[in-house]
């Protein structure tokens, strides 16, 4: 059997799934012409991706933005005995993580898809040192949890620090489009807008030369779901007896991990490209009792 006649699997069409999810999560196109954001009742549903809810056509809620809102309002809510703890969003995030770990990063997240597209621009490429991947945990703990909770105004409200100071997805999906379609917002442009725009420009430059740098070093959503990779229902596995350490999977991996060293690494976005690229049938995955192993594609030599 050769790679040519091997039946194509969903994992081989992943960019189409990513494009479909990107459009599906931002499907309310009429908003772009009305100059407002979608305000339907379904928008309280959290989406499994870093997708800004202020994108004019966004259909759902960004879980990281929603979580910060709860942390930012927690002290005020406690002071007035309002029972709003963010359990809906926390439960949603943990449920997705328990089921599939970081898989939505590889298949659903529009911002991850954008990074993969920009990386296709042919230029010299840079690898990201592994130590930088730990920075995303610091972002999760400080910007999403600690600062919104600890630094509050006179009413007890904290800010959404990650959205305000860092999130380039918000600038790209909401900041720029809203300035284009809502003229009344333009006079409000000031330092913060230029700060976020500058940060976006820097990130886009990084996307050109490195693979998914935002996901790997900054994204708090990926940091959280990555913690579940080892214990989720969806599992990756590497057969040590079949693996030849040829390193093809490492070279093809969009987050540059060596899956043969740690099959369920918290860095893995479970795009399954390694399963397709392994010619020795060494990499497999399992979900709900169903195991998928790519066959050994080496052509037997004629005797």
């Amino acid at each position, binding site marked *: 059997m050769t790679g040519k006649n091997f039946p194509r699997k969903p994992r081989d069409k992943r960019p189409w799934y990513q494009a479909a999810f990107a459009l599906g999560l931002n499907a309310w196109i009429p908003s772009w012409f009305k100059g407002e954001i979608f305000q339907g009742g379904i928008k309280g549903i959290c989406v499994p991706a870093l997708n*800004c*809810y202020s994108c004019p056509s966004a259909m759902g809620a960004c879980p990281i933005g929603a979580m910060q809102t*709860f942390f930012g309002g927690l002290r005020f809510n406690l002071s007035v005995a309002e029972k709003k703890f963010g359990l809906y*969003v926390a*439960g*949603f995030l943990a449920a997705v993580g328990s*089921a599939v770990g970081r898989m939505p990063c590889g298949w659903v997240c529009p911002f991850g898809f954008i990074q993969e597209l920009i990386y296709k621009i042919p230029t010299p490429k840079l690898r990201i040192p592994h130590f930088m991947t730990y920075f995303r945990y610091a972002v999760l703990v400080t910007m999403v949890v600690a600062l919104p909770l600890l630094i509050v105004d006179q009413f007890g409200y904290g800010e959404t620090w990650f959205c305000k100071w860092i999130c380039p997805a918000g600038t790209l999906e909401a900041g720029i489009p809203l300035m284009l379609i809502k003229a009344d*917002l333009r006079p*409000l442009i000031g330092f913060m807008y230029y700060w976020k725009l500058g940060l976006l420009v820097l990130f886009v430059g990084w996307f050109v030369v490195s693979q998914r740098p935002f996901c790997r070093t900054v994204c708090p959503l990926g940091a959280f779901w990555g913690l579940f990779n080892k*214990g989720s229902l969806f599992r990756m596995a590497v057969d040590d007896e079949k693996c030849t350490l040829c390193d093809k999977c490492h070279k093809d991996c969009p987050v540059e991990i060596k899956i043969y060293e740690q099959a369920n690494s918290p860095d893995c976005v479970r795009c399954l490209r390694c399963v397709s690229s392994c010619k020795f049938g060494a990499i497999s995955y399992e979900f709900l009792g169903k195991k998928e192993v790519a066959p050994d594609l080496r052509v037997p030599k004629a005797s």
Partner: protein
Amino acid sequence: MKRRLPWVLLAVSLGVMAVGLLLGEYRTVLEKAITVCLDCIGIG
């Protein structure tokens, strides 16, 4: 031996999510999501 941890985690997570929904947190998320987030777009 079947792995029980992910199932336990999933059940607890769904339970937590359900409690949040019963406390009316969906409404809070919806109110945030249908309002232009000034922080997100850089004018907050």
